[in-house]
């Protein structure tokens, strides 16, 4: 049984704008999934329905096989954590520590456990030395990690990161890549929305491609990224490596720079 089963989800905003149209997929424990697609493709609305921030217009989200139709948003949020695209939609406490602690207090986590989880979340996100800092004294790229830390501390089964790569430098991307690996090894499922195709190629085994409110591909990243027609339909750019591989007529699909280089050397004239 899948950890999460998304069944025929659709959503229409009150003004009549259809944002998501009949989307289905499953998430297993320990999976690391990227969702890609143009601005407006329906990515954020889809994931917000997974944690109850947006109630599905139709369809259902099953967690461990159980329908969540009658769950409250608070019940959903304990199972599925969501990190907002804009950290400023989420942050309101005076220190990083208090910001991470806030959700735990709401969930009545006991003090010792609370401290342990905050320490762990701060370490994973590189926030340890900023725990007493006001989040608004940190740059946007680091405020994002404050919000990620809050969700990690909540210890949900599924964690959704909405555009965590935006504005990140190499160090930020490294932190993100490492925390994805640690969390999935702990059995957490991670769902990441991003526009950074190279980051997806380097870090995610599975990718879901959304285009005009629907899922048009869901599979192994290297299979999907080499399908030029799908990528073009979704108005996405294949990573440079894929375009080079296609350009030189490489017979092997790989997203690994080292493997590509080895292939090219072997096929020298």
């Amino acid at each position, binding site marked *: 049984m899948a950890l999460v089963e998304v069944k025929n989800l659709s959503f229409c905003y009150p003004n009549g704008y259809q944002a998501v149209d009949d989307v289905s997929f499953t998430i297993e424990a320990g999976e690391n999934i990227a969702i890609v697609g*143009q*601005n407006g493709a329906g990515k954020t609305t889809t994931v917000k329905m997974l944690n109850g921030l947006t109630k599905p217009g139709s369809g259902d989200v099953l967690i461990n096989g159980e329908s969540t139709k009658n769950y409250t948003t608070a019940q959903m949020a304990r199972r599925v954590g969501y990190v907002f695209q804009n950290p400023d939609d989420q942050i309101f406490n005076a220190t990083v520590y208090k910001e991470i602690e806030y959700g735990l207090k709401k969930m009545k986590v006991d003090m010792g456990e609370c401290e342990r989880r905050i320490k762990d979340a701060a370490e994973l996100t590189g926030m340890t030395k900023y725990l007493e800092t006001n989040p608004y004294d940190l740059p*946007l790229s680091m405020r994002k990690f404050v919000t990620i830390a809050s969700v990690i501390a909540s210890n949900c089964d599924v964690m959704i990161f909405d555009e965590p790569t935006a*504005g990140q430098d190499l160090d930020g991307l490294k932190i993100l890549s490492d925390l994805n690996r640690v969390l999935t090894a702990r059995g957490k499922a991670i769902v990441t929305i991003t526009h950074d195709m190279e980051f997806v190629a380097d870090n995610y085994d599975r990718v879901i491609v959304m285009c005009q409110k629907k899922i048009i591909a869901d599979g192994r990243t290297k299979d999907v990224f080499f399908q030029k027609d799908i990528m073009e339909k979704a108005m996405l750019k294949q990573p440079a490596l894929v375009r080079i591989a296609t*350009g030189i007529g490489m017979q092997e699909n790989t997203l690994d*720079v080292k493997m590509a280089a080895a292939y090219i050397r072997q*096929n020298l004239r």
Partner: protein
Amino acid sequence: MDSIKITDLTYRYPTADEDVLRHVSLSVEKGQLCAVVGANGSGKTTLCNAIRGFVPKFYKGEISGEVLVNGKDVQREEIGITALEVGFVFQNPFTQISGITDTVYEELAYGLENMGVEPAEIERRVEEIMGLTKIEAFRDRDPYQLSGGQQQRVALAAVLVMNQDVFVIDEPTSQLDPQSTDDVFEIIRLMKNMGKTIVLVEHKMEQIAEYADKVVVMDQGQIVLEGTPEEVFSDPRCEEYHIRLPQCTRIALELKKEGIGFEKLPVTVRETVETIQAITGAGKDGQERKG
């Protein structure tokens, strides 16, 4: 003449314990696109603010050294006068969008109205820029109701319409999908073709490799590397300065490790494909994708 000439600039924010810019010197020729890269916190945005005079005029703090824009010392100039020469696009469109206009159209006209431009001329310029930046579709929408990506394009358009000689653009594509990112870079290319001088802060190295004339790497408040994209990206110190190399360059460097040498390090997809084809004879008939 250099459009921008910075000489030995050192600066410290009022409450800070250390300098955020340290002995920075930089010249950007008229019509050049100069990309500024480096880790977050290395001083890129502060450097941008020094070019438009907000450092130190608005932020105060201690400064030494000189910033000349079109030969004029921005530290002596009124901020309002410098603003006529330097267009500034904010990192966060939310910070930039005025909040006092109801539509995208009015947002674009706002700056021109303040400058007292004739209404007919305002209309002409707003229409032209909306066309160039492909935002006509949301001309009547409230800027704050747009998606992050759409807002970023509006923010860029609202500055472009002012038609200054020098543009400072701070991470214009951070919220954008790949297609919109390319659209923004096409706008930037267009600006370059119009002879504008552009200083661009950006993390997307693939686009920098393709569009920039010059790349400047900042680290802890200093300029530590400077040159063409090819020169900078082939410098092994990039790793030390936490620069994410374009994938093309990463492949080329791997090939070098495998003992395959190049005269010139390829930095774009096209160059890489051509270089590899030249050595291996691979895929001559393959369909090469533009880029």
